[in-house]
């Protein structure tokens, strides 16, 4: 009888240790990058924690179907605020990385959520100077939205032709 009691206590003890270990293992999402930019998220914290997916779902349909481009509930803005493009050592941060230190991955992994936003959407902000960020393209010309470089005669045509053709 006593033996059984002992085993029970031992088991309980093990369970407790296990629980404590689990608790220590809860990953904390890194809120520092966002906190540096804004004191408050676009919605109250409790609300956005629970309902961010609903906000995103509504906004994605508004954007794709109706062309509404407001930034409040835009996934791009979440990424811009919460995800730093690189780690301190300069390596790229991706949602699928083993380290699971991408802002979104840190929670989703723990709660076992599978979503595929980042199969299509960029999972970190765009950084112009970072060569490994964008797909390399087989071209050496820049289109006119590039901010640098001298405009060609074609730029001037674009600026002028409305009046020219309307006369």
């Amino acid at each position: 009888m006593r033996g059984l009691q002992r085993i029970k206590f031992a088991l309980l003890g093990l369970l407790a240790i296990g629980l404590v270990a689990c608790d220590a293992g809860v990953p904390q999402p890194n809120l520092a990058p966002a906190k540096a930019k804004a004191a408050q998220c676009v919605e109250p914290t409790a609300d956005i924690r629970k309902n961010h997916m609903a906000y995103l779902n509504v906004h994605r349909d508004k954007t794709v179907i109706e062309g509404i481009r407001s930034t409040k509930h835009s996934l791009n803005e979440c990424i811009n605020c919460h995800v730093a493009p690189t780690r301190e050592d300069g390596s790229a941060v991706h949602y699928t990385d083993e380290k699971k230190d991408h802002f979104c991955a840190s929670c989703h992994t723990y709660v076992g959520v599978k979503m595929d936003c980042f199969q299509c959407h960029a999972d970190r902000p765009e950084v112009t100077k970072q060569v490994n960020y964008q797909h390399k393209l087989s071209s050496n010309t820049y289109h006119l939205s590039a901010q640098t470089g001298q405009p060609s005669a074609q730029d001037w045509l674009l600026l002028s032709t409305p009046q020219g053709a309307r006369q």
Partner: protein
Amino acid sequence: MSQINAYRRKFLAALGGVAAAGLASGVIVREVKAASPDVPTRPEDQPVSNKVRWGMLIDINRLTDGGASMVEACKREHGWGNDPKASPEQQAQWMRTVKVTDKLTKHSFTLPVMCQHCEEPPCVDVCPTGASMKRADGIVQVNKHICIGCRYCMMACPYKARSFVHENLTDQRVHSPRGIGTVESCNLCVHRVDKGQLPACVEAAPQAVIFGDLNDPTSRISQAMKALGGSQIRADLSLNTGVRYLGL
């Protein structure tokens, strides 16, 4: 012919005016990224309306490179054409140049072909999920959120305008999401048009391409089409395409 000559004269006159302006100001200011007069801006929280129908008029004779620079601009804007694992046949192709030769006269020319933004799009008719869609303003695109990758639309499109993404991609363009298992095609740079900017390919060939609102009779494109026409590829299909050509 006289119409064309008139058009050329206006074109040259415009060119002269610009050169003068450039000399007078002395300072070259690059304002092209800002809103274009051809694309009226819409408040960002307002939906698109069917009062507008976007269209494009491409003058093939003015495209000295047959549209190659337009294709490059599209690649750069949307990041397609260099997917790491795709074979050359599998690479996405939102826009391509096509060389046409008349068998009798041997006259040949090259033109850029992309989604023609049909008013009656077969790709929308066949889509089982509603992912292939036409926006109120006439832009045809794939809503990748609900595309199941069945590729019916690729089969239905008479212009071979659509591509399928076969592999996992990362670091896509922020403004142009594209990913495995979905179909994609030219969306008239919808992210730029919504900001009042011209599509990237139009910016790359301003001497040959006019973009604007086909529903507005005073727009530059409507005026040009009224004066010079604007033919459709495969007009026999009666799809009323939004992309029109001069010099076909």
